[in-house]
């Protein structure tokens, strides 16, 4: 059966690749479980980005399958079992590559947005 993917409306819609980049970046500061990652991204962006869990968990598992992050079960502070993700060596390399790509992309977009027509002051 083919299912229609329900798209949740986020405050800002994140492209799939951008979400991956943010997850990798968040994990650079240390291993974190899924809830923690979503809180960190919200806090880190100043409450702007509230990551839709419908995208987060699939992304986490996708990244894990790609080998950029690795997961293991740990006990939380409240003694509950949770899955904690950490960045792998390959993930670090991918993060660096994604960062440079993002930088180039945002520069390019910025250049187009800030471009003045010939002759305009």
């Amino acid at each position, binding site marked *: *059966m*083919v*299912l*229609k*993917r*329900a798209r*949740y409306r986020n405050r800002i819609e994140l492209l799939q690749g951008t979400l991956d980049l943010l997850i990798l970046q968040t994990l650079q500061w240390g291993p974190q*479980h*899924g*809830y*923690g990652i*979503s*809180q960190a991204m919200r806090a880190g962006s100043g409450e702007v980005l509230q990551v*839709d*869990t*419908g995208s987060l*968990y*699939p992304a986490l*598992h*996708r990244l894990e*399958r790609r*080998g950029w992050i690795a997961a293991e*079960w740990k006990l*939380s502070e*409240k003694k*509950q*079992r*949770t*899955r904690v993700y950490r960045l792998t060596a*390959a993930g670090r390399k991918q993060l660096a590559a994604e960062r440079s790509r993002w930088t180039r992309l945002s520069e390019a977009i910025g250049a187009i947005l800030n471009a003045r027509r010939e002759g305009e002051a």
Partner: protein
Amino acid sequence: MRIAGIVERLRRLSTRDADLDEEIQFHLRASADDRMARGESADEAAVRAHREFGNVTLVKEVTRGMWGWTWLDRLLQDVGYALRLLRRSPGFAAAALVTLALGIGATTAVFSVVYDVLLKPLPYPNAGRLVRVWEEHPPGRAVAGNRWLSNRTYFAWIEHARTLDALGAFGLYEYAFASGDDVSRVFGSEVSPSMPSVLGARPVLGRLLTDADAAENAPKVIVLGESMWRRQFGGDAGVIGRSVTVDGEPRRIVGVVAAGFVFPDRRARFWLPDRIRPVPTDPKSQGTSVFSAIGRLAPGITLAQAEAEGTAAALSAPVTLATRMLFGSGSAPVVHVRPLVDDMSAQVRPALLVLAGAVALVLLITCANVASLLMSRGIARQRELAIRAAIGAGRGRLARQLMTESFVLAALGGALGLALAAALVSLLPALAPPQFPRLDDARIDWRVLAIAAAASIVAAVASGLAPAVRAGAAAAAEALRGAPAGQGRVTRTLRNTLVVAETAFAVPLLVGAILLAQSFVRLAHVDAGYDAQHVLAARVEVLGEQVPGRSARLLDTLLPALRGRPDVAAAGAGSMMPLSARTAITSFRLPPPDGGPPVETHALTYRVTPGYAEALGLRLRAGRFFTDADANAGVRRMLVNEAFARQYLAGGPVVGRRFGDLYNDEHGTTTEIVGVVGNVLKDGNDQKPEPEVYFADGASLGGSSRRIQGYINVVVRSTGNPAVLAADVRSLIRGIDRTASIDAIEPLAAAVDRSMDEPRFATTVLMTFGLLALTLAAVGLYGVLAFGVAQRRRELGVRAALGAGRGRLVGMVLREGLGLTLGGLALGLLAAAAVTRLLESLLFGVTPLDPLAFLAAPLALVLVAVVACALPARRAATVDPAEALRCD
């Protein structure tokens, strides 16, 4: 990294669902805890956390999609659905599964037998190099079609043999085997000492045979087979050196041969050394013996090269009278060399190949039936499929689902079929005639599983393809509205084609089965020259010392005692009997009626007592049978059969003719023919008549009076059931001579029955397949017609409302059904005419295009078709027009 990743993933496969659930639960709890920390109540926090998270199930679905196992999930889902569907329609499931199980089971069983008997390499080392060797003197024919090598050719060949590494003789005989007090009739092989080296046989215990064992006056030894050693001697290692008695002669056990070398077939329990009689140095002496020969080709040598060398050796050996007698009169000898594996199965190969063809046809018919069933179900499920298409299933997806369903069906049918095949294969050694070669090796192994799997896949694809192709067509909306008229017609055409195909497949099977049945009946009714009804036959062997005296005493006491009984009509004895394995041929000189040089004759030679001919019911054509006076008359009395008279005594009266010396070593004997009897087919009903002569027991032969001695066949004709005499005859014989070895005492009818085992087996199997094909074709036809009637209810209702009588409606159905059948018949008869040629070697007294078979098969099919039409026709006739027009 990759491997670790794969290992990790595999490890997680089993718990991944639960893990994901736990992970998400933790998220929800943590979120709720944070909210509670900010001041919300527990319930509110939980609800809001859940709402913020979103649709848990959906998230899980999408996440699972990331795992990359979606195809497996979908497959399992389809399989589960297919199983549920089958459970919900048990009738359809039962019909389809039984059909498939029969088709796949029969195919697997037959093909595994074909493989085991025809294709599997023999279990001996270097089996590929083993060959059967025999010579022929065309156009002469060896007695009863035997394939022998003569000792002269053998010795001429092995002297300088370069193409053969080894050449040996073998023969399978039945013996009286006594170990301790335990006496039984057992088969054993007589082999020449070179045979172990030919086969590459190894001893499990002791040693095998050597040249010394086969020398003229060597001590008598025996080598046991491993299975006999384990079963009868308990695998006791101390068996070496012990003595057993074979046919009254003590023999010392010198070794046990490994189980894999049972030779030539599964009946042989032990080996005895056999001596190939050396060629006498005196060139005028006859000294020719023949035997069955097996050899091992030297490496790199072809069959043709071996044949050339053998033929040269045969040509170099002088041709003697004995050679002509054994091989038939012919010109230059030719030596044949054939692979042993082909030779062992040569007799049954045609039957097996026919069987394989038949079962392939049955498989196709079952596939056609199942396809038909699936297609009609496809029509019934149109709404369901249309809904699926409407909510997003692509054509490929629907087709995949339908194919999965047919694969599931085929897999289940295949599993059932495999069970059926296993049962058949394990029963086969018990059902088949004992001479059927290599059957004890037939068992279920991986090749059989592969065949079953292949058959299942063929069935699945063949039966699932048509429905799958029809699925997902653009008329989904129409189907939802509930008016599947257009689709129904196309499906009907397809199903009609299937029925025609089924019928066409069934016809050659039926025709072949009827031809074989006719053959069998003709074979059974051949006039073999004697009457087996009411006859008891006892095979007795007088062994040990003073055989002639003891034989004479046995006969002189036994026969009068038997004849004196009121329930015995006639009793006699002979040196040979119909269907006994022993064959005695003698050659003698006869002066031709019109003067001139004597003619060499050879004939099957029986020595019989008076009463033998009457007991067996030989047909008297002229003259009379023997009387007691003939036994000791001065003149040797003789009976000849029609074949002998026609071949050697043409011209002039036969009865009363006298001859001088017949045999080389006679002087002054006179022989008189007292009668002519009908031909006796000694070796079975399918043999040609041979010249035969009968000498009265005691009639002078070679100078002194000679009687039946050693091997005695007693024949007793009873007035009622011969079996009741058996115990009395046995005790009579024992009373006269306690040490005489009694072989079988059984009604002769039983031996006749046994001689027909092979044709009976082939006929039974093919008839079963024919009936199976007939039933399947009928079921297929019924299915199509019933479906057609159901589909056309509105049309039939309209016709009935407009005044069509019951007869017209019934006629419609019958016309359609018979139309299909006749179409299939036409194609099938053409196919049958082309294909029955292949049966030729199996037929007896029947041509491949026998009109009776070609009439009976269509008749049977038409009758069955009419029966299949009956129920749908009745339903068509009883359509209530009002009701049919109302429902849609």
